[in-house]
């Protein structure tokens, strides 16, 4: 029996964390809603299983997304995760092949060198020792980067790194100690027996030449075991909880579970999956334009995990979705923030460290309301029957040029349309939702739904991406919903709109709620290409910037908003375009004040391009081209 008391701390830590991970997983599973449970079961025994395994390998071990975004940071994460994984895997194989017997307890693989110090002298054994040394060197290279990053984050290409709490610091120190102590322990043992490969062997012989290696090795084996044990014991209360949680998250996500708009077990899993890597901080415009560095999603997740009052963090956000796009774990950060905004701001009770091992399910207490309808004053409006319904939205009324342009386009298309909010309409409800007032928003949604239903329209066109997003996600409408860029694209494709080509250089700014929020990237650009020379900006598609005028943020001041807008505008107009085109009245309004370039909505540009006298079309051709509105769809 090969045993030594120093393996006890490691064994305690290892079995604790294994049992803990199982208990937490069972708890999460039982807290999932019934449909989600079924999804997870189906996913576990279906094709999602393979996809999950692949994703775990690519993302949790290799860290492909981080590598793509930032090689040095990715290398750091990869060397620690993948390197450690390889070390355990090959260590187990080593213990199995070269050990005294097969099927060893885990500690045999981890402390193989201590129990088999004479191993690795010749032949295949030496090659294997070389491989093990190579893996250790791989991990240590990443560890050096990690230590440097803690003190100077610029080295790994990060402008900001996350700030830590006390348990995090202890866990981090023990994590940092694991591999150097293994290196020194193995080297000293190798030095005594004259074994080891290029790393442990050479270092061992050097150390053994002037140190009493035989006596020193044992304390370092103790240190190695202790740091492993400490790390495992502290893991549940630190950010390293993301290591086991992320596995669960990947399985759940591949099984089709989504955040939705209710808080629950899946939200909690995502919260614990955040590794506080800090990539969201670098992606955030509030960080690089206004220097606000304490409200990014990593801090929101940390605040929720630590049961802190995150009200200020939750509301100080543009809700542009850039962090969702960059998050290497793929956490749905903006939906979680939306859920959090509904919570009442309360001072959370102080929690002991022990209770943080088994936290209650994260519960969000919705803001109290008195139950009376808030919008009893809503007017009685009758809508007339129509085929196409145009809903301009509040913001479009503030930028009448867009409204006029849309009327011009609708008139030119010859379609049978009605202007729903010609005399000013009722808000779509999304601003209220962004402020966490879902109940009030629902009243507006019901009101507007009634209007749209009464009109019997088949197509609902809106000019405002904010309205578009809420119509798409929170209204239950039986109409084809279109943003005006999609509508114009359809008119062009169907040849219902004849346009001239304007010889103008145009750049396109994708609004957050239309692009990242609703996934519409191509139609606006297609329309622009049809009428002007569209140029790339370097911030295209899902990489687009926020204009800063977002209704999502109620905390930043007018000056800070302007700073974000000015930075975004100057980044977009670097190529000196003649027009900065956008598809959102709010973006237009925000950009107009901060740039000298002409800012115009796509509808305005298209209205400008409408041929003054429709090209000579023969009557029968027109009839062929123009389908009766009743035949639409």
């Amino acid at each position, binding site marked *: 029996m090969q045993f030594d008391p120093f393996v006890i701390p490691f064994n305690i830590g290892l079995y604790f964390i294994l049992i803990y991970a199982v208990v937490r997983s069972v708890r999460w599973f039982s807290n999932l809603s019934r449909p989600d449970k079924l999804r997870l079961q189906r996913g576990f025994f279906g094709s999602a299983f393979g996809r999950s395994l692949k994703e775990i390998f690519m993302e949790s071990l290799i860290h492909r997304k981080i590598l793509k975004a930032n090689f040095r940071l990715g290398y750091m994460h990869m060397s620690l995760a993948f390197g450690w994984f390889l070390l355990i895997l090959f260590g187990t194989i080593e213990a199995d092949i070269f050990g005294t017997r097969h099927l060893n307890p885990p500690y045999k693989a981890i402390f193989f060198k201590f129990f088999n110090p004479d191993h690795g002298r010749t032949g295949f054994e030496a090659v294997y020792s070389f491989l093990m040394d190579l893996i250790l060197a791989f991990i240590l290279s990443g560890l050096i980067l990690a230590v440097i990053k803690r003190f100077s984050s610029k080295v790994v290409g990060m402008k900001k790194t996350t700030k830590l709490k006390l348990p995090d610091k202890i866990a981090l120190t023990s994590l940092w100690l694991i591999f150097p102590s293994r290196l020194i322990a193995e080297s000293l043992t190798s030095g005594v027996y004259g074994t080891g490969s290029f790393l442990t062997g050479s270092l061992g012989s050097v150390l053994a030449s002037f140190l009493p290696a035989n006596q020193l090795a044992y304390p370092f084996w103790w240190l190695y075991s202790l740091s492993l044990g400490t790390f495992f014991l502290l893991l549940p209360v630190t950010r390293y909880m993301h290591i086991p949680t992320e596995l669960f998250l990947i399985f759940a996500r591949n099984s089709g579970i989504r955040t939705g708009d209710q808080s629950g077990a899946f939200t909690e899993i995502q919260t614990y999956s955040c590794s506080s890597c800090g990539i969201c901080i670098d992606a955030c415009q509030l960080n690089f334009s206004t220097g606000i560095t304490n409200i990014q999603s990593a801090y929101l997740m940390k605040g929720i995990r630590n049961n802190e009052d995150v009200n200020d963090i939750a509301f100080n956000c543009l809700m542009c979705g850039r962090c969702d796009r960059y998050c290497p774990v793929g956490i749905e950060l903006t939906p979680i923030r939306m859920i959090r905004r509904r919570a009442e701001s309360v001072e959370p009770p102080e929690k002991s460290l022990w209770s943080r091992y088994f936290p209650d399910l994260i519960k969000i207490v919705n*803001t*109290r309301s008195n139950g009376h309808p*808030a*919008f009893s*004053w*809503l*007017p009685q409006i009758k809508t007339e029957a129509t085929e196409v319904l145009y809903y301009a939205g*509040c*913001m479009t*009324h*503030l930028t009448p040029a867009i409204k006029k342009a849309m009327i011009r386009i609708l008139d030119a298309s010859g379609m049978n349309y009605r202007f729903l909010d010609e*005399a*000013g*309409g*009722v*808000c779509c*409800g999304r*601003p*209220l939702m*962004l*402020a966490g*007032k879902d109940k009030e928003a629902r009243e*507006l949604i019901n009101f507007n739904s009634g209007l749209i239903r009464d009109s019997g329209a088949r197509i609902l066109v809106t000019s405002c991406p904010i309205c578009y997003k809420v119509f798409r996600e929170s209204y239950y409408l039986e109409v084809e919903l279109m943003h005006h860029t999609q509508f114009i694209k359809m008119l062009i494709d169907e040849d219902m709109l004849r346009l001239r080509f304007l010889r103008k250089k145009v750049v396109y700014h994708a609004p957050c709620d239309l692009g990242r929020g609703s996934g519409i990237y191509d139609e606006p650009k297609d329309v622009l290409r049809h009428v002007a020379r569209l140029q790339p900006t370097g911030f295209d598609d899902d990489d687009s910037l926020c204009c800063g*005028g977002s*209704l999502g943020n*109620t*905390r*930043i*001041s*007018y*000056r800070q908003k302007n700073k974000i807008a000015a930075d975004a505008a100057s980044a977009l107009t670097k190529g000196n375009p003649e027009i900065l085109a956008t598809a959102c009245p*709010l973006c237009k*309004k*925000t950009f107009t004040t901060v740039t000298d370039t002409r800012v115009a909505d796509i509808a305005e540009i298209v209205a400008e391009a409408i041929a003054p006298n429709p090209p000579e079309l023969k009557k029968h051709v027109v009839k062929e081209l123009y389908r009766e509105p009743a035949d639409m769809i």
Partner: protein
Amino acid sequence: MDKFGFTLVKGRRIDYDSNDRSIAEYVSAHEPSFRICIECGCCSAACTTGNFTQFSLREIQILLKRGENDGVRDKIKKCMLCGKCTLVCPRGVNTRNVILLIQEAFRKNIKNAV
């Protein structure tokens, strides 16, 4: 002749001694831009709710600053938070946050004696 002379019409008098300005103070503490409002009324002119009702953010500002909170309590709920007022404000007052803070102050029953 006994009806001759000056008199105070009670309904038109602002009694700063008995009025409660705590809500205005709560709002300006959390949103300092509330103080720089010049009561020009652009917000009320642009208002979506004001299109249908008598809702006026300008009026609310004035009432709160006087400490006449009674009238505000019901009015403030009418806002749809669409944000047009923020965009038209010539002083850069963060009006959406002002409205949210007023609602919060009433909900929390910040020392509201009136």
